[in-house]
């Protein structure tokens, strides 16, 4: 082969549309966000654990769950990270804070965005409250983000 370097770089893209069916309980959860701006969880009758997102069977005792409970809307930050890079699938412009939030009355954490506060001022344990989107379409982003609350 000659000395010439024939290599070059080819830009490419993979793109796959798909439909996600939220299921019976997921649908109820998302419809409650859209229609009533309420965050609903499910409660295991045996363990008394409250799950968010709600689920129809308990991960602890494998029992069937049928009780719905309203949780939050306020919660405390359990953990967080600062997202500094941009990807097409990310819902907001970086930098932004992605946090685990333990809502009042829940036994599991919800992952969501924290805004209206600069990333360096976010603390574990701080109280946050949801800000709902004006246009809601049964998505987890019907909660626009959480903001610091008293």
């Amino acid at each position, binding site marked *: *082969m000659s000395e010439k*370097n*024939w*290599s*070059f*770089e*080819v*830009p*490419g*893209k*993979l*793109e*796959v*549309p*798909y*439909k*996600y*069916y*939220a*299921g*019976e309980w*997921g*649908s*109820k959860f*998302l*419809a409650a966000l859209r229609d009533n701006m309420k965050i609903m969880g499910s409660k295991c009758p045996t363990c008394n654990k409250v799950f968010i997102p709600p689920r129809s069977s308990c991960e602890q005792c494998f029992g069937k769950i049928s009780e719905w409970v309203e949780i939050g809307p306020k919660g405390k930050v359990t953990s967080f990270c600062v997202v500094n890079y941009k990807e*097409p*699938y990310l819902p907001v412009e970086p930098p932004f804070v992605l946090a685990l939030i333990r809502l009042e009355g829940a036994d599991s954490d919800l992952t969501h965005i924290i805004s209206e506060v600069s990333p360096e001022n976010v603390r574990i344990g701080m109280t946050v409250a949801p800000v709902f989107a004006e246009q809601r379409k*049964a*998505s987890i982003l019907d909660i626009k983000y959480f903001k610091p609350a008293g």
Partner: protein
Amino acid sequence: MTEEKKQDLVEIQELVSVPHSFATGPVMGRFLSEIRDNKRIVANKCPKCGRTQLPPRIVCAVCHVQVDDWIELQPRGEITSYDMIFIPTLNPLTGKMREVPYTSASILLDGGDATLTHFLDVTDPKKVKVGMRCEAVFRPDGERTGSVMDIVYFRVLTEEGSK
């Protein structure tokens, strides 16, 4: 009797989009550059078994020896098999459904013993037969980007007929 309230079941439309880039390496890079710059289809030839490798690779897939001999193939050849597709399927490179009908064919290019898979311009099952001749139609100068799609399709040559 009260009417049972039907539950609203939520379906969410999502789009997975993954931008990426890959390096051609010297061998595939030469193959694609020749198409882009000179409208030539080149392959390489194994020094041990004499096979034509198209697209070329640095190692012979059969003998596992390094392949350094390059040959130029003609941008025309013979259809050895083809598929006509009438059912649209998802193209994962674009996220869109493919336009149908289209014809995909294996083409034995003159000057070697390897086939190239590409599209034909004919989508009428009555007008294509194995053994028919076809020729490459390249994109115009300045529009080729170094992709195998710099060849738009192979035009079926009806006047030459089947072999």
